């Protein structure tokens, strides 16, 4: 249901249609990365406990490293989206409006 072709009906105004498709693609791609990152981590937590419990350095296990990575990664993905939206998407919307 998220496929861009269905989101934008054929014969849609060109600039609007193209921008709308791009936005959907970026939003869906980033969401998939986020969901893969989190559920990858949770699947390993749920089904690969020995691997996750590996000690990499004194005081540091794999699960702590990856867990902190998911927290930092969530913020970084948000940041990527905001930079894209502010630098590219907003100006493009303004161009179409004017």
């Amino acid at each position, binding site marked *: 249901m998220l496929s861009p072709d269905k989101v934008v009906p054929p014969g849609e105004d060109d600039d609007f249609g193209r921008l709308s498709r791009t936005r959907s693609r970026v939003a869906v791609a980033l969401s998939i990365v986020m969901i893969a990152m989190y559920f990858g981590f949770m699947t390993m*937590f749920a089904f690969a406990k020995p691997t996750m419990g590996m000690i990499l350095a004194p005081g540091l*296990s794999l699960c702590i490293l990856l867990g902190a990575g998911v927290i930092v990664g969530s913020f970084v993905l948000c940041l990527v989206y905001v930079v894209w*939206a502010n630098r590219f998407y907003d100006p493009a*919307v303004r161009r179409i409006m004017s």
Partner: protein
Amino acid sequence: MQAANNPLAITFFFIFMALTLGITYWAARRTRTTEQFFAAGGQITAWQNGWALAGDFLSAAALLGIAGIITSNGFDGLIYSIGFLVGWPIISFLIVEPLRNLGKFTFADVVAYRLRQRPVRMAAAIGTLTVILLYLIAQMVATGSLIKLLFGLPYVASVVVVGTAMLTYVIFGGMLATTWVQVIKAVLLSLGGLVLALLVLMHFEMNPLNLFSAAAEKYGTRVLQPGAKVAGSGWDAISLGVGLMFGTAALPHILMRAFTVPDVKEARMSILYATGIIGSFHLLVFVIGFGAMVLVGPEAVTKAGGGGNMAAPLLALTVGGNGFFGFICAVAFATMLAVVAGLTLSGVVTVCHDLWVNVVRSGEAPEREQLTVARIATVAIAALAVFLGIVFEGQNVAFMAGLAFAVAAAANFPALLLSITWKRFTTSGAVASILVGTISSLLLICLSPTVQVDVMGRSLAEVSQAWWFVPMKNPALICMPLSFLVAVAVSLATEEDGAESSFREMRRRIMFGASREAVAAE
């Protein structure tokens, strides 16, 4: 115990009350219209809203609860920290912009945008109020017992004090006062967490790894490894993850904040700030939890009572002395107060805007009447929260917060997502999906070990033999896909011409906002 009647804690508490009531008085004079009451006139900046979102979202459980779980179990507490954060990017990518451009005060505005108002609003109100009520009960009961623990105030008196203070903020100051209460609370909470984590790290050459290895030396490497505390079977952990991620993205009191800022860019930025604040805070809590493990010890924390909730306050006492202990207690209190105020306000907006204006009055009601209804609803919800808080005293209601996330994920999220992305989505599909999501979550939790074993005290071996037994502690993994399935099946079985033809207009408004639409309509 040393926590009772700490004079410094009570002093800090009075300073906080004086400050927030002063702000409420100031805000009350700026709250004349529904736009101001429900959305602070859309005049909150992205920074303020980012802190306010963090204030709405970080409950006392984020500091006291998770620190306690880490102190007694080690790593496992981080699973909650991560779960509470991962929904935010989803809000950012998929939800916030359509929400801001299509809606006025609630997420039901978006779902009902091109569908029939009445049935969708009623269903959305059921989903929303279920989430809010479950969350409020969990918060009120936790608040009553924590204030008893921190300040030595009797349970019923604590619940009444919290109920009265939150009623005052919401009824007089509306969204503007509530926002500032959230901002102050979030800043205090982050500051308290930062100082506490730094004081801990000073004992370990400012290196968290030294802290973790000290913990591993004292209590074994198991504290750095995944345990079985958070979830029983493997699928339990996945289900918890589904509930936390998609539930966060559909919590009514969080979504409501998208309308308090001037435009879509500010809404987007405020989600980014909130994600940063909440993420950093949870990293600090990880250090605090291990700090309490090494410097206070899990035995002392258990002895202090409150199911591990005293880990962070006791750590503050150990590393920062009596004054800092008082500060952390007062911050915990402010935290609980702010969260219930935000929840109450979102319930009020739902009752007034969705139910009264759009269902009872068919979309048109005078401003004065709306404000009167809003104020009556505030009193009613506050009274209900206090009443339920007292009724559930001493009951095990910890599961209700998790259930609130599961209901949000199963009832609100599918309808919200499909309404903005799927052209064939119909009114019947939306209503069926919301109702199935709500009812199946409530039903499955009752048949799960969460209620059967933890609340009713039956043995796991006994109930797991029953034919109706649901082996998952959190029902989201079953209920959310079920709700999506029902939404798609019912939509395909029904036709709604108006909904399909206005899809394109809706897509334009998602991109250009309301102003462009008004121009196009001329």
